[in-house]
């Protein structure tokens, strides 16, 4: 247990120092438009259901962002996982989709903004589309590579036990590649979360954490800006750790695949 305490102390050391330095700098700068005091930000954070600047409160805006992320993320998973499995398993499907995917993949999600606005208008759908694009590729790429790296001996063993094409896909390929798919989901979720904030900063947006940051900036409320950034960081961390927990708990066997 002693080691754990030492680890924890070490892990918390830098964040604590950062807060202290921030507070000292804020006192020195003495201008809340450039750097607000720690107390001001904490004050925003500890009253999350208090209305801010007439745009609803922190909780509502956070929930709106989460809802958008989940919609885009689930849509992306629903398309990318089946497509990835088919592309990894069937060479013809891979040949069919590979070129277009490799061409689209390097385009950053934000480059899709104008088209997205033109196609889906100013509203939820265009933001969800941006998130979809952001989450789609990491999920797809990880799924394909997971399916392709299923060891041949496993498939051959299943064949000699009487497995046919469909059994191979359902009972060997999909379970064997599931850790890799989950890694894709974790990376995709992280990118989706980054995309929502960016999408909400677009002129058409009128709610969400990204919107709140831009609005607070326009009226020089840096305490609200920093409070929102902290929330974004914490939610991203929870998302990542949650999926990592699932990986460790349910995919402990994954070390054997290496």
């Amino acid at each position, binding site marked *: 247990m002693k080691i754990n305490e030492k680890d924890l102390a070490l892990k918390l050391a830098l964040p604590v120092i950062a807060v202290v330095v921030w507070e000292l700098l804020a006192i020195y700068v003495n201008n809340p438009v450039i750097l607000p005091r720690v107390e001001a930000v904490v004050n925003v954070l500890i009253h999350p259901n208090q209305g801010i600047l007439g745009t609803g409160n922190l909780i509502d805006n956070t929930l709106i962002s989460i809802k958008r992320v989940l919609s885009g993320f689930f849509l992306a998973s629903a398309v990318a996982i089946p497509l990835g499995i088919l592309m990894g398993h069937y060479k013809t499907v891979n040949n069919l989709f590979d070129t277009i995917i490799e061409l689209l993949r390097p385009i950053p999600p934000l480059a899709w903004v104008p088209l997205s606005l033109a196609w889906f208008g100013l509203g939820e759908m265009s933001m969800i589309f941006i998130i979809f694009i952001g989450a789609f590729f990491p999920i797809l790429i990880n799924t394909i590579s997971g399916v392709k790296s299923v060891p041949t001996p496993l498939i051959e063993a299943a064949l000699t*036990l*009487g497995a046919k094409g469909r059994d191979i896909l359902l009972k060997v390929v999909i379970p*064997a590649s599931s850790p890799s798919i989950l890694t894709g989901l974790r990376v995709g979720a992280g990118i989706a979360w980054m995309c929502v904030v960016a999408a909400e900063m677009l002129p058409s947006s009128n709610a969400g954490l990204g919107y709140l940051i831009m609005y607070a900036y326009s009226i020089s409320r840096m305490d609200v800006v920093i409070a929102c950034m902290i929330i974004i960081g914490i939610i991203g961390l929870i998302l990542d750790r949650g999926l990592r927990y699932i990986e460790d708990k349910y995919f402990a066997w994954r070390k054997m695949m290496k």
Partner: protein
Amino acid sequence: MNVKLKVENLSKIFEFNGNRVKALENINLEVYENEFLTVMGPSGCGKTTLLRIIAGLDTPTEGRVLLDGREVKGPGADRGVVFQQYTLMPWRTVLKNVTFGLELRGVPKDERIKIAKKFIKMVGLEGFEDAYPYQLSGGMQQRVAIARTLANNPEIVLMDEPFAALDAQTRNILQNELLKIWQKDRKTVFFVTHSIDEAIYLSDRVVVLTARPGRIKEIVEIKLERPRDRTSIEFLEYRKLLLEILKEEVLKTIKRGE
């Protein structure tokens, strides 16, 4: 004696990068019902290729394989294989690995668990039903692989150097257990090894292949009562005989620099 498996005029040529390599040449072989037959030869003689063709995992260039008079076309549950590499499904417990083949055939759950438990007990792994492969030693994993193959009740068991990766002690123990199971279960076994000791200890007949291209050089019947004593004069005489037969072929292989 009934012929269980028949290999007829079988040849195999591998082609890669424009090179043609003859792996097997005109193999004719009969394996009798309940027989324990071992194939051995210098490394690269095509013994594993022969096993893979019988299993249906490779196709012959010429000739054919008949099981109970029917021509073999592709892999199937009637020819169980125990591979040299570890081929257990890492996401399945010991029990669920052993029930895999039964599950594919739609055997009801209660019944397949009953069958699996019987074979898990037979290979001495009672109490490990809920363990995952990564929690087991290499020897234990091979026992599970043997149980998995036997639980599927194949017509013939093909074993491709199943104990090659194990230490000498574990290998001897597993050889004894395999013999016990074979005597109890009355299966036909087609065993591939490069160990003379293992071949004499286990087999009714030993088929010696020549260096590449693999042809049948000689078939030696081991007329020793079981359990056999590895240090008896008769055993050592068989050793000497097989060493003599193999020597020429091994020298050929070495001369070619393989």
